[in-house]
């Protein structure tokens, strides 16, 4: 195991975060605060409570997940796409380092960033609404699992993308809609039964539901199912990454 290489990549990626602090940390915090103002204060004043929790409080886990999902994908996809774009990837490919170590460095850094960001947003939310976390360890577990899974997913997008447009396409057209429709701002139980069934095909529902359960012990689907679906998505991403490196897809051809 080439730990020094993993460390080098990890620190390089983290250094990029500090260099672009405004873009990496400040802008997601600002946009989340806006959600609180719009949804929490303006709309929340008309919805008294959802399943026994005030509306402002109810949306916190969904908002954290929204940021963690989008930031994980953005960080990881950009992290690997950029060396491909400027050509510095040659050095990574020519180094005595295994695929696993490359992924560990890039995905580790991307996940770290989005976990830090998730916690910052959580703290920001605490300024707007009272928070309670029933199962802090489960909360952290969901946070880490989601950050890692979606960083892997972002890594795949970054390898696949051969232009900046493609880099933006999946997050914009797939992930953001799925997150908005995944119960960030409402309980799936509030939907008519037909829509409810369709919504259950959305994998993000399970992430948000599980995460929200760790806060308030209210969930749209069972916690076991949430963990199971997330692990399944993680496994799929791992298989795809394994295939990418095995074939050298868009890296070595």
């Amino acid at each position: 195991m080439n730990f020094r290489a993993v460390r080098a990549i990890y620190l390089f990626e983290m250094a990029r975060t500090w260099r672009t602090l405004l873009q990496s940390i400040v802008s997601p915090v600002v946009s989340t605060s806006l959600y609180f103002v719009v949804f929490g204060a303006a709309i929340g004043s008309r919805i008294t409570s959802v399943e026994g929790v005030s509306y402002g409080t109810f949306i916190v886990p969904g908002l954290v997940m929204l940021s963690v999902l989008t930031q994980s994908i953005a960080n990881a996809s950009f992290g690997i796409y950029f060396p491909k774009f400027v050509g510095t990837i040659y050095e990574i490919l020519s180094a005595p380092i295994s695929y696993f170590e490359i992924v560990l460095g890039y995905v580790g850094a991307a996940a770290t960033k989005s976990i830090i960001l998730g916690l910052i947003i959580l703290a920001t939310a605490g300024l707007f609404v009272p928070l309670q976390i029933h199962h802090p360890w489960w909360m952290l577990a969901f946070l880490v699992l989601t950050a890692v899974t979606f960083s892997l997913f972002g890594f795949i997008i970054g390898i696949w993308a051969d232009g900046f447009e493609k880099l933006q396409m999946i997050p914009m057209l797939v992930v953001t809609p799925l997150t908005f429709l995944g119960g960030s701002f409402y309980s799936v139980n509030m939907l008519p039964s037909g829509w409810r069934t369709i919504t259950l095909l959305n994998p993000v529902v399970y992430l948000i539901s599980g995460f929200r359960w760790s806060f308030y012990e209210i969930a749209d689907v069972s916690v076991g199912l949430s963990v199971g679906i997330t692990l399944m998505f993680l496994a799929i991403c791992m298989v795809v990454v394994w295939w990418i490196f095995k074939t050298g897809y868009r890296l070595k051809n």
Partner: protein
Amino acid sequence: MRAMSPIISVANLSKTYGSGFKALDNINLEINRGEIFALLGPNGAGKTTLISIICGIANLSQGRVIVGGHDINKQYRAARSLIGLVPQELHTDAFESVWATVSFSRGLFGKPKNPAHIEKVLKDLSLWDKKDAKIVTLSGGMKRRVMIAKALSHEPQILFLDEPTAGVDVELRKGMWEVVRTLQASGVTIILTTHYIEEAEEMADRIGVINKGEIILVADKAGLMQKLGRKQLKLHLQGRIDAIPAALAPYNLELADGGRELIYNYDTKGERTGITSLLSDLRGAGIRFNDLETTQSSLEDIFVSLVRRT
């Protein structure tokens, strides 16, 4: 010093790209420890593809490559640890400092921190006073040296320089050659690709010529020039002649400069160059000359004739 076992051995290597383009066709090549090997070839000949495969950047389609006794696929860690690569294009992280990017390379190759070594590399490449500068602020020549510094950061035994002096001014090119010679003196094996014949002629111990994905020649530089070097004898005549006398037909002479010059091509490797008999036959034909000169074909001429032949 020059051990008999090659440090790099390429056997039956072929590379076909996804598009069906065959970039390399059954390459067999051995690089000796400690030598400077120049790989010459026109653009698109396969030089960069060959280097990319040896360094792990591209997959091979067929064949085998052994670096320092290690198979590049099965023992890629051991093989790649020995290699430093300076690619043709200036691929750099714009916003990193010189020191950070060179230290990063060393870490990537799994070597423990060694600020003294990095300091030495930067000083050798005249980059020391730029160590804290962001790469984006450097000139093209400096960026090129940063890339060499990155490649040397992990103390490689083999250094690949892909077109090291492409687009580099004369002064800097000379400086680069100096660096390469110093490296060779310290025991590093150097493989450089170039299409500047001058560079190969100046630097290399051995030369390989690649064209259309095939190695068409590998030879000792001196031997190559001797083997293929043709010499030319030019005679400046006292008066003009209209035609070459029939008696001189066997020499295949050329008439130039409006009949004032006779040109004779001969082979230095032949036992008899034919010069003595030519001169006496000229006298016999009554042709007088007042000056003569000989010229040897350069590596460039050799190269052009080789590439044309294939």
